[in-house]
């Protein structure tokens, strides 16, 4: 069962991909999309007066170049443009999801996105448990998004539903 935060995360991600990348979610994850190698990752950290955390986005199966191509109208985006485009997508989704974490009225700050290497991801793996985690498929690729709130876990979030 999806948590409320995961539902908001899905809505925000689908809308961002539709409006900015002109990509539409495929109804089902195909078998070929399940074990695709990681191609790109980016994280955005956020902080409010009383909580901090980050949003992590990972792409697989050609989604990273497709995002850059679509949002920049450039058939051959550079490596930096691919990183920047994914970072901007992460930034927008984070800006949309963070207010739903702490209720209305809070002020918060979203840091600029940071591109992550496979080594960066390996270092961070298992250190924290995400509050929400979603996988969506677009074209032949896939996007995985994890939302972390420092000091909270998915188990706590599910209990409070």
């Amino acid at each position: 069962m999806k948590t409320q935060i995961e539902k908001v995360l899905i809505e925000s991600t689908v809308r961002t991909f539709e409006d900015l990348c002109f990509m539409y979610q495929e109804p089902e994850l195909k078998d070929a999309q399940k074990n695709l190698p990681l191609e790109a990752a980016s994280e955005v950290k956020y902080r409010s007066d009383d909580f901090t955390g980050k949003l992590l986005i990972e792409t697989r199966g050609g989604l990273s170049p497709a995002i850059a191509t679509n949002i920049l109208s450039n058939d051959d985006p550079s490596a930096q443009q691919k990183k920047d485009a994914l970072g901007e997508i992460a930034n927008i989704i984070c800006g949309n999801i963070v207010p739903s974490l702490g209720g209305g009225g809070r002020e918060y700050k979203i840091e600029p996105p940071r591109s992550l290497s496979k080594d960066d991801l390996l270092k961070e793996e298992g250190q924290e448990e995400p509050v929400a985690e979603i996988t969506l498929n677009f074209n032949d690729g896939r996007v995985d998004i994890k939302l972390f709130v420092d000091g909270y876990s998915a188990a706590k979030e599910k209990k409070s539903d």
Partner: protein
Amino acid sequence: MALNTLVVDDSSVMRSIIIKTLKLSGLPLGDIWEAKNGEEGLRIIQDKWIDLALIDIHMPVMDGEEMLTRLRENDQYENLPVIVVSSESAPGKIEKMLKLGATFIHKPFTPEILKEVIVAVTGVNNENTD
């Protein structure tokens, strides 16, 4: 009337997205200028004829709030149509920008939404005559 438009955002990708969306909106556009912070944006406004400014909030050097405050302090730009384009959802920050006479568009946005807001703030004819 073709709109000379200034796009101010520290992200080159976001500037490209906004410009692409402007073009897809079908509105009559004149020259499009880009700046990566409020300071650069103010310099362009002083040097060029600008009909519309689309600005981000969070930028280094000078953020969108300070840029807008400085614009409104100058009688010449008191009524310049300004649209704030941001993923910001904190009500306090948005409220400040609205009080300074800006209109707010939340990211992500479609060409249709952008067109609707630009027509409302500039009164431009919404048919592209190109």
